[in-house]
């Protein structure tokens, strides 16, 4: 027997096939966007309703997403896409607001040379539209809140743990939480005021700020000071997020005391450093993600030639870069365009196989 829900899904998917075949889906999307730019059936869009200056280099963007947004769990991140000079560029940001609210906040630190963060800081205003991805990430509070919690952060790494703390506060579930945050100075503490207020209101919250500019204080994470401040850290369920070296150093401490099982670390890190470029193609490994195969480059040649030499048959046409038939998504790695000399290192970029040579190990959506 077919359930009502299945029948509903069946009709809906049949309807969407008909709409696509009659080219009505494209028109529906267009008119929806004309009436209200935040509405869409194809994308998660969000309207910026407020921009809050948190510190000199950090802003919070308060967003009202459309109906396609399915919510998030405290600690998760979402991709945020903007049009920079006509080109869509995407970065992942942790969500700093608690789950279950109509408004969603991302808190963005301006990274020198960062295209998206700079664009957001310079150009994004109230009323603008951003595109989001589905919330993702395993760095989340477990369903059953641990009795003893430690939230440990550094710099802009405060954002996911702030979402957790706000979530706990909203559920009145702050029983025994230590919040240790590292920053350059008091002025650089993101959410400083709100943290003080929460600490004043909740007896179960102990707030510890480690500031680099305090007299004779160590810079960043330092084991002795930390163990002194939180002597029972190894017994607490801990959520750690901050700059890479900061997290590495903290993680070693947990390893040394044999408490790694209680430590959760935000593994998402923005990939800013391009893969190291190789000058010779020989030996470069090309992984074909969709077909789950790998190819090792032999001799010289474009990616198309390399793949064909290895027995692969990727779609292609002109072989001179004009027809775009061999376009495919490069998930990771660096390639160079042999016509323009342009180097592409960013993840998830479209490349043309027939005019690209590999310059590092690669992963292709093939």
């Amino acid at each position, binding site marked *: 027997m077919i359930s009502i829900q299945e029948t509903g899904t069946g009709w809906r998917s049949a309807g969407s096939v008909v709409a696509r*075949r009659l080219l009505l889906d494209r028109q529906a999307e267009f008119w929806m966007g004309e009436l209200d730019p935040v509405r869409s059936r194809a994308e998660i869009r969000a309207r910026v309703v407020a921009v809050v200056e948190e510190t000199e280099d950090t802003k919070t963007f308060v967003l009202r997403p459309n109906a396609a947004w399915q919510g998030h769990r405290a600690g998760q991140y979402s991709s945020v896409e903007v049009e920079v000079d006509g080109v869509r560029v995407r970065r992942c940001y942790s969500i700093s607001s608690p789950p279950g609210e109509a408004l969603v906040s991302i808190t963005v630190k301006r990274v020198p040379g960062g295209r998206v963060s700079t664009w957001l800081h310079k150009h994004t205003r109230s009323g603008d539209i951003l595109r989001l991805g589905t919330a993702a990430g395993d760095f989340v509070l477990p369903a059953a809140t641990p009795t003893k919690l430690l939230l440990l952060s550094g710099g802009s790494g405060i954002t996911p743990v702030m979402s957790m703390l706000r979530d706990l506060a909203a559920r009145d579930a702050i029983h025994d939480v230590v919040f240790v945050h590292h920053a350059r100075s008091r002025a650089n503490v993101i959410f400083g005021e709100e943290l003080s207020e929460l600490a004043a209101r909740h007896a179960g919250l102990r707030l510890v700020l480690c500031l680099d500019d305090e007299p004779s204080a160590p810079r960043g994470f330092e084991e002795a000071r930390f163990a002194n401040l939180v002597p029972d850290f190894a017994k607490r369920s801990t959520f750690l997020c901050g700059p890479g070296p900061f997290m590495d150093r903290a993680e070693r401490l947990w390893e040394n005391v044999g408490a790694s099982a209680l430590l959760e670390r935000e593994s998402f890190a923005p990939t800013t450093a391009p893969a190291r470029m190789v000058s010779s193609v020989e030996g470069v490994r090309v992984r074909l993600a969709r077909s789950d195969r790998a190819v090792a480059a032999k001799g010289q040649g474009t990616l198309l030639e390399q793949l064909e030499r290895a027995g692969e048959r990727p779609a292609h046409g*002109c072989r001179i870069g004009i027809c775009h038939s061999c376009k495919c998504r490069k998930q990771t790695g660096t390639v160079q365009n042999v016509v323009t000399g342009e180097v592409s290192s960013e993840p998830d970029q479209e490349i043309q196989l027939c005019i690209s040579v590999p310059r590092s190990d690669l992963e292709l959506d093939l």
Partner: protein
Amino acid sequence: MTTQSKSLTREEADAFGRELDALRQEVIADLGKRDLEHIRQIIRTANRSEAAGRLLLHFGFGPLSFVLGTSALGLSKILENMEIGHNIMHGQYDWTRDPALDSLRYDWDNVCTGDDWRHSHNYEHHTFTNILGKDRDIGYGFLRVAPEQPWRPVHLTQPVVAALLALFFQWGVGAHDLRVDELFAGKQTPAELAKRARPFATKAAWQLFKDYAFFPALALINAPRVALGNLLANGTRNLWTYAVIFCGHFPEGVRVYTEDETADESRGQWYVRQLNGSANIEGSRWLHVLTGHLSHQIEHHMFPDLPAARYPEMAPRVREICARYGQGYNTGSFARQLSSVIGRIARLSLPGPKKTAKATRVVPEEAATPLTYRAAA
């Protein structure tokens, strides 16, 4: 204007190509918000025009609203097929990474499937432009548009055949990649043809359903009026695109190439062939937009994946480079180019003039850099 192009040595052609590559790079570096806003504005115009056309056809009465409605619908179809669909499917907006402007995902309001078009047009026609035996767009296999094509008695009918093709142009375009001629030549079995034709048949059926059943049914009592309006709008689009496309490659002065001539062509020589195999139409900004900027066929063939709205500003530079290399630049008014094409189709329906493609130039082996790029070491 059809001055004869000077024959270039490989070195000259390569220098010519380097100048065009530099121009190409200059435009790529400048692509940005302006280009995105242009195509979105055209999409907006096309959608509004379609909505206006449909409202007038569906809810209007009398001849005035019928003429206006049909015109608005025809205009939207022309914009969608030419400036929007054709150009997006060329990859002209792939750099924006907007999925709505993605070359491989876009499908146009035409019975030709996007995939067939990408293969027969973007790849075959744009790579092997005007090479006899390789570019199936030279007369589409049944018209004699160049004296180098051998005359056959069937060509006597071509003035009539060409006129019929104009009326049903989208069907000609849609069936082009099926290679029906190969069935008669024994290069394709009926089973292969049937398999190849399936996506086209499916899309054509949906298109017929859309234009002559779905939209008329929505109009209830006005159904016949809507069906007729759709037919006329499609027909207008057919005549217009036919005229524009024929003016791009078949006027007097455009030349064809042999396979031998182009066997080990360099990138520079490829540019020379694109130039000598294409012709431009002069006109206003709106003429260019309505042709999808195929009025700049020369620039389009040199830079098929650059946003077409850039061609008008590139054209004077291209023309200047061509002049310095002694290359003709075939351009003229719409009336001039169209009458040239009509005259040529009529004249070539009869045998002669005697003309065989030029003898192959011999190129020293070591000078050859084949068209397929070799990666720098």
